[in-house]
């Protein structure tokens, strides 16, 4: 009896340590980053271009580049991703070819991002003759990267709409399209939105594919339109860690990381707000 109690306690402690391990390391990392970034994060940092002099350097061009790029990725990936999910769930479900497509989509979600970079370079630059390193090419490449995630998340959201609602709508004489538009999509919007925004959060942190398509590591003017060359936050952060002066590694890079984290967290917050808003509208 006694030994059993001890082994029980030991096992509990082991699982507890496993839980704490990740959290402690992550919070240590965050605390260090915030501590180092503290002196550098100000309006000047957010509104200035990069510079050789740490006190003049800022993050404005890559910040705008990242925001423009991610907005475009959203615009490209939502219609294509949701459209594909609707087809797979509502029109093609149960067919053999659909199953094959679905398996491939799941596999695509696990392909390393650098491979998408090569694909983007080959498809958009070599084949379609767009200029390398411009916002449009970056957005299209990252769209390819997150499409599998968007499709799978949308499929799950669509699948979770109760079959009884579809039957009710069809039974009232609605066509398939009317049923999808009026019943299926409104009920699955919260799930789709969550998936899309999580996928966008992944895209905004990507570096490897952007290197492949020739995005700049440092750029001194913010992109004017989608055909301008650009840099993105993670690339600028990487650049700063490689500079000779210590202030870049221990000041500006952490400050850039905090900005990137802030954008990702606010995207997640927007996802939650939108989801709750649409849930309320659904009157569940």
């Amino acid at each position: 009896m006694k030994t059993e109690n001890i082994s029980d306690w030991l096992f509990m402690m082991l699982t507890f340590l496993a839980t704490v391990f990740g959290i402690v390391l992550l919070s240590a990392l965050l605390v260090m980053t915030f501590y180092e970034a503290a002196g550098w994060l100000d309006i000047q940092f957010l509104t200035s271009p990069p510079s050789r002099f740490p006190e003049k350097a800022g993050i404005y061009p890559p910040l705008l580049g990242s925001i423009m790029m991610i907005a475009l990725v959203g615009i490209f990936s939502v219609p294509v991703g949701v459209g594909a999910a609707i087809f797979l769930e509502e029109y093609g479900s149960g067919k053999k070819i659909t199953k094959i497509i679905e398996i491939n989509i799941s596999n695509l979600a696990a392909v390393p991002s650098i491979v998408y970079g090569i694909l983007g370079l080959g498809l958009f630059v070599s084949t379609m003759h767009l200029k390398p390193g411009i916002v449009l090419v970056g957005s299209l490449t990252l769209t390819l990267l997150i499409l599998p995630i968007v499709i799978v998340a949308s499929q799950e959201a669509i699948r979770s709409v109760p079959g009884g609602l579809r039957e009710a709508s069809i039974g009232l004489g609605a066509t398939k399209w009317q049923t999808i538009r009026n019943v299926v999509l409104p009920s699955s919007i919260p799930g789709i939105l969550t998936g899309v925004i999580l996928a966008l959060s992944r895209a905004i942190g990507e570096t490897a594919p952007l290197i492949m398509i020739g995005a700049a590591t440092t750029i001194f003017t913010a992109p004017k339109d989608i055909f301008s060359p650009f840099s993105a936050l993670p690339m600028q952060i990487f650049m700063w860690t490689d500079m000779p002066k210590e202030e870049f590694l221990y000041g500006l890079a952490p400050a850039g990381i905090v900005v990137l984290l802030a954008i990702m967290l606010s995207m997640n917050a927007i996802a939650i707000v939108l989801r709750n808003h649409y849930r309320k509208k659904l009157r569940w």
Partner: protein
Amino acid sequence: MDAIFDVRNLSVYYGDKIGIKDVSLQIYRNKVTAVIGPSGCGKSTFLRTLNRLVELVEGVRIEGRVLFDGKNIFDRDVDPVELRRRVGMVFQHPNPFPKSIFENVAYGPKIHGIKDREKLQEIVEDSLKKAALWDEVKDRLSESALGLSGGQQQRLCIARAIATNPEVILFDEPTSALDPIASSKIEELMIELKKRYTVIVVTHNIQQAARISDYTAFFWMGELVEYDRTEKIFEYPENELTERYITGRVG
């Protein structure tokens, strides 16, 4: 007697499995027809064939004819969408849309092209009155339909079916998910509805069939065993299997 449905040699297969086999019967206008039988006997399949909802099932095959007002519903020129407007359906589990009460009832008329707000309001009020729900919900039409009780939700689904102005309303075990009081309200409603509509109801509950129906069809393993006036079925059934089923000795 005026038949609204004339079913001739109807068979439905799911792949290799038989749903119903060689069923022929006539459904009479402005009557309540009950379809009874044990689980898996094909009664739901039969009901869902009448508005062609059964076609949503993958791999289904239909043989025979169903004449609706003299016209075979499986003819190429029959639009299933128009058929389903004329043959409404209420399901086993109340399934209101996650929208307001008003939007639920207005759904059918809207998808059939009625946009005028006043006309829609008129239809919604009229349908809710016919479904005996108006007095309970008239002050909260813009609230979620999912806030209603189970019985109210089912009457809302009836109102929703009425709103497309159908000729027939199909009920697929409409009270099996409801408590006895809510069930008896639905039963009263079905009797009331036959003045304007033809009612066909699938039920597990033999007493319910006896209480509300004018005609009863008894299905067994995909076949129609007996079909007659309800009093006749319950008092002098011709088939021994029917008698054993309604007296609870088999099933």
